Every structure is written in structure tokens, then in C-alpha cells.
């Protein structure tokens, strides 16, 4: 029966136990994800009759001699049974592994996600190198879309049916429908190449190198990416707000004599934002695994650009690395959202 919890006992212990349980589940899930990725890359081609040599021929130059292909098969261990390959991969994460660069071995300390089949670079440092760009892009865009999307959604809901509401919802529909590579290229064409207000594609600079350039180079990608999400969030917020404003407890709040602004901000918004928070967490988690389209359009060397190129180049270790990386962020986002949800909504229990 609710209400009978002895106070004091609950709080921290429950949260810690919850997190521990979820972390264990997450590790298991990551293992499954990695196995599935492995299977897609190795099992399916083999089932379709691909030989280890056929696979290796992708990673050597054209006209490779049979010896060179055999060399690649051995170097990449493509002829090992799948389970052995997977075992080596898993072991690399825990214990690291070595790799032949030619005259000497390269050490790849744990966590080692292996080396790119295409350019021989270790995957983990590459990922870490690409992460700040993706973080900058995703977080900046998230701030923009959260503020504008929710703001427009609330105003639209409160002024339901007004010209402002209709205009906002039309723009939002456009935002949801237009693909990023279209809005991105058009914005570059107009603001970078015609008006010259912002730098063009490929101008991303790390914040540590030049904060001003970092900011300028990200304005268009932020807006482009945020436009899509802001549109989505405006629609979500508007719908949620309309629903909440019809709730009994809003009527109660008004009956107490609360000012309308307080009713909206303290009572309505809080209830509206809670489900949006969930979606936001998942969206952000997903984006941290790479904003593929935006990064590609603006030539930002982030995680998303890395993985799309790796998929095109059949670069399994990189694909695997990014997949796990992205899955990690999604799991993390889920966890944070669940904990936050429990904080925000007292009815939710962590169990």
C-alpha cells in the first residue's frame, strides 16, 4: 500500500540498487549489440557465400596478388571461426591487443576496439577524437531546440487557434518534413556562400583551439539540426500543454486563486515537460552516437560522419566501435532519464 513506506529507508539505497541493476543490464545489452553487429558483418556475408579472401580483397589495393590477400586474411584474422574473432574483440576491450604496422607492432591498450580495416588507425582514440565535435553539435543544438521548441509549443498552446499558433505550426510542419541535407545545404548556400555571414562547410574548429571560430562554424549546423527537433518539440509541447491545461489539477490551481502565469509555469509546464524530458534524453543520447546527416552535410568530423564512412567502407572495427559507443550513450541516456523521471514524478518508482 502506498504511503506506508517507512521514511528514510528508501532514498539512496533504492537509487543505487537501481543503477547497479541497470548497469549490469546495459553491459549485457552492449554484448548483445556487439554480437549482432559482428553477425551482420561476418555471418551474413559468409552465409551468402563470401570467402575470407573475398572479404579481405576489400581491404587491399586493387589487383592485389593472392599472397597479399592471404596476408590480409591473416592480418585481419578473417579466417578464424566467428567465435574466436568475437573472443579476440572482447578480449581486446578488456586487456588490449597488439597489431602489426610493419616494422614493429603497435600496442593498443585497453579498451581496445581494434584497428580500422581501411586506414589502420586504432578505433578508440579515433572515436575519442571525433567525440568533441559531436558533443558540441548535439549539445548546442539541444539547447536551441529545447528553448525554442518548448517555448513556441507553450505559446502556441496558450494562444491556441491564433495567427501566431497557426504560423508556428506551419513552420513546425516544414521543419519536421524537410530533410537536414536539404535545409543544411540551402542554409550554407545562402548564409555562407552568398551572404558570407557564417563560414562554410568543413570549418569546424575545436573549442580548445579557437572558441570564436568554434562558435561561428557551428551556428548553421546547430540551427539546421535544431530546426528539425524544435519543430518536433513544438508540436509535442503544444499537444502536451493543451492536454495538461484541461487537467483537473489545473482547475484546482486556478480555484486556489493562483495567478494564471503561475498556473502555467508551475503547474502546467511541469507536467507537460516530464514526458518531453524522456524523449529529450533519448534524442540526445541518440545524437551523441553521431548526428550522421548534419555532420555529413556540414563536413563535421564527428562520430556520425565516422560511422557513415565506415559503413560505406565495410570497416567493421569502426562500425562496431561506434555502434557500441552509440549504444552506450543510449543506455546512459535511458538510465539518466529513468532516474530523473523518478525525481520529477513522485509516482514513478525505480524498480
Amino acid at each position, binding site marked *: *500500500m*502506498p*504511503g506506508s513506506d517507512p*521514511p528514510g529507508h528508501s532514498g539512496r539505497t533504492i537509487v543505487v540498487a537501481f543503477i547497479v541493476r541497470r548497469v549490469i543490464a546495459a553491459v549485457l545489452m552492449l554484448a548483445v549489440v556487439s554480437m549482432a553487429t559482428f553477425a551482420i558483418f561476418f555471418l551474413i556475408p559468409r552465409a551468402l557465400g563470401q570467402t575470407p579472401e573475398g572479404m579481405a580483397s576489400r581491404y587491399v589495393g586493387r589487383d592485389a596478388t593472392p599472397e597479399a590477400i592471404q596476408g590480409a586474411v591473416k592480418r585481419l584474422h578473417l579466417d578464424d571461426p566467428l567465435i574466436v574473432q568475437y573472443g579476440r574483440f572482447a578480449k581486446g576491450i578488456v586487456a588490449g591487443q597488439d597489431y602489426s604496422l610493419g616494422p614493429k607492432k603497435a600496442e593498443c591498450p585497453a579498451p581496445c576496439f581494434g584497428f580500422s580495416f581501411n586506414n589502420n588507425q586504432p578505433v578508440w582514440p579515433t572515436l575519442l577524437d571525433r567525440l568533441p565535435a559531436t558533443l558540441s553539435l548535439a549539445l548546442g543544438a539541444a539547447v536551441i531546440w529545447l528553448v525554442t521548441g518548448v517555448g513556441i509549443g507553450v505559446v502556441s498552446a496558450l494562444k491556441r487557434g491564433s495567427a501566431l499558433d497557426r504560423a508556428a505550426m506551419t513552420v513546425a510542419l516544414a521543419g519536421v518534413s524537410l530533410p537536414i541535407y536539404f535545409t543544411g545545404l540551402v542554409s550554407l548556400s545562402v548564409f555562407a556562400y552568398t551572404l558570407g555571414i557564417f563560414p562554410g562547410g568543413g570549418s569546424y574548429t575545436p573549442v580548445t583551439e579557437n572558441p570564436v571560430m568554434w562558435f561561428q562554424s557551428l551556428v548553421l549546423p546547430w540551427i539546421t539540426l535544431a530546426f528539425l527537433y524544435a519543430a518536433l518539440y513544438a508540436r509535442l509541447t503544444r499537444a502536451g500543454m493543451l492536454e495538461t491545461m484541461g*487537467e*483537473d*489539477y489545473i*482547475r*484546482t*490551481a*486556478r*480555484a*486556489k*486563486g*493562483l*495567478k494564471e502565469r503561475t498556473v502555467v509555469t508551475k*503547474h502546467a509546464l*511541469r*507536467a507537460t515537460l*516530464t514526458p518531453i524530458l524522456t524523449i529529450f534524453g533519448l534524442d540526445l543520447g541518440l545524437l551523441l552516437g553521431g548526428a550522421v546527416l548534419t555532420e555529413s552535410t556540414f563536413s563535421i568530423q564527428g562520430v556520425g560522419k565516422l560511422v557513415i564512412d565506415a559503413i560505406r567502407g565495410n570497416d567493421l572495427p569502426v562500425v562496431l566501435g561506434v555502434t557500441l559507443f552509440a549504444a552506450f550513450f543510449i543506455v546512459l541516456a535511458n538510465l539518466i532519464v529513468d532516474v530523473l523521471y523518478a525525481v*520529477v*514524478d*513522485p*509516482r514513478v518508482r525505480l524498480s
Partner: protein
Amino acid sequence: MTTPPGSFLELRDLRIHFPTEDGLVKSVDGLSFKLDRGRTLGIVGESGSGKSVTSLGILGLHKGGRARISGEIWLDGEELVTASQDHVRSLRGKKMAMIFQDPLSAMHPYYSVGAQIIEAYRIHHDVSKAVARKHAVDLLGRVGIPQPDKRVDDFPHQFSGGMRQRAMIAMALSCDPELLIADEPTTALDVTVQAQILDLMTDLQREFNSALIIITHDLGVVAELSDDILVMYGGRCVEYGSAEDIFYRPEHPYSWGLLGSMPRLDREPTERLLPIKGTPPSLINVPSGCAFNPRCAFADRTEGRSTSQVPELLETEGGHLVRCHLPRAQRRSIWDNEIKPMLEST
């Protein structure tokens, strides 16, 4: 504008209409009544009869919306229909307060019970949180919540149904309102708890000497409590009188139906002696003549007036008002000879 009345609360020809895509919804269409301090009025009717819209109208919660409001609402010498929104807001919660039905949805799920009471108190009292909290604990204790100093931090979902209703009452009482409106205060509760809540409300009313309006679809709820009873149908008053009038000398066929629908301890709860056939009227296309005529078992005894003329609300005797085409003698005779024996037979 007419002169202020002598009564504490008086409604004069109140109309609340909502324009919709389908037409004008006349939720309340010419309602008048008076209520003094220390007295209790029961407003009875089916859902859609306009009783809840009336109560929200008194609180001014339709102001600024799409509703078209006319008529007069006088509260303690002030007219509220023409008063500014902000002024009415300042009276809400303090001078007049409301106890909503279904407190699980009427209380904010994310705020503790205490926080919601504290908020209500601090809107109208410039006190610190600590003071307000002490007040909230006191209130919870007074409405019968055990260990109020602990339960004050619980959330609504952690309370049982009865306790939630008590908390709701505590919240409404936080500023000692002079007018208290209770909308179906006991609907969601089981019978024993119902009785406790009703007792609590009458006790508190006596203590504060406030005017109390109880809104319900169930005559049984108001039987004990009310001094006067107003029966609403289709946005209008169809019968008004003292509790004795309504229970012992009801003259409107709809009131008879309500009496017949009262759940009684000696019968199965689902069994209804004298069911009211059909559904409540559409408030857009109100039936011509008497709004109740399609459902009235005695409409054929009105020589056709029931479908052609709108009956007027007329006084029979001693403030007992009835809106019916049947001649008074005939009404009395039907009650005495047809209805009453049936109600008493089992």
C-alpha cells in the same frame, strides 16, 4: 444593475453559454437562488445538468474563456459577473473555495499534499513557508489525517481515497472561506467514508459559519446535510425547496425520479426503483416545451403543453418552487397515490 441583496450569496438569472462548432451550448440558462451564511444548499442533478458549470461560474473560472456569461452573482454585497478577473481571482481560495470531486486528478501529482496546501495558503497570506507548513499540518490534523506532521510531505498517490478527500477539504479550508462549494465530494468513496466526510464538512461548516453548496447527482448525499435543495435539469432549476419539501413533498416528476434512484441500504446498489428513462437533454437542441418532456412519464397529462410551452418556475407554498405544466393538484395526487406508495412498498 440592481441593488445588492440581503443574502450572503445570490444568483440572479445566471446564464453561462458556450459557443461551439455545433452551436451554442446553454449549460446554465437562467438560474437564481439565495444562500445565507451557515446554511447549506444542495444542488442535485444528473451530469450535464449544469450544476458543475454553475459552481465554476460562481468562482469566476469561466472568465476570460470562451463562455458567454450574463446575469448577476452577488457575494457578500459584491457583484462578480462584472468584476475584474483579477479581483475575482483574489477572492478565490480565500472568500470562496471549492472541494473538487476525484481528488486524485484534482491534486497535482508532482507536488506533495502539504506543498499544495501551503501554496493555497500563501497565495492569500504573506507568511513564511515554515508558518504556512505549520498551518497545513494543523489543517490536516483537523480533517482527521493521522500523523499529519509526517503525512504532510506525502504525495497524493500515497494517500487513500478518503484521506485524499480530507486533504482536499483541508486545502479548500486553508484560508477560512466564507463560501464553500463541494462538487461531488464523496462520489469516489465507499459508504462509511462518505458518511465521515459528510460529517466532517458539516462540523467544519458549523465551526466557520460558512455558506456551503453541495453539488451531487445523489439526493442521498444531501438528505442529511442540506437546508435547501435545488434540483437542476437541462441548465435550469426545476424544483427548489427546503429539504423537507423535496423529500416529503416533491412535486416535479424529475425529482420523483431522483428519489426513486436513491441507493438504499436495504436494496442491491444497482437496483433502481424508479429509473429515469432516456438520457439527459442536449444543451444545444433543447427539446421544445418542457426540457424534461421526452423522459417524463406524465407528459401526456399536460394536454400537449409539455411540448409547446416552456413551463415557468412557480412558487407553490412557503418558498417551494416547481417548474411543471401539471396542475398542482394533479402533481400532489400523483405523488400521494402513485409514487409514494411505490417508494414505500419495499
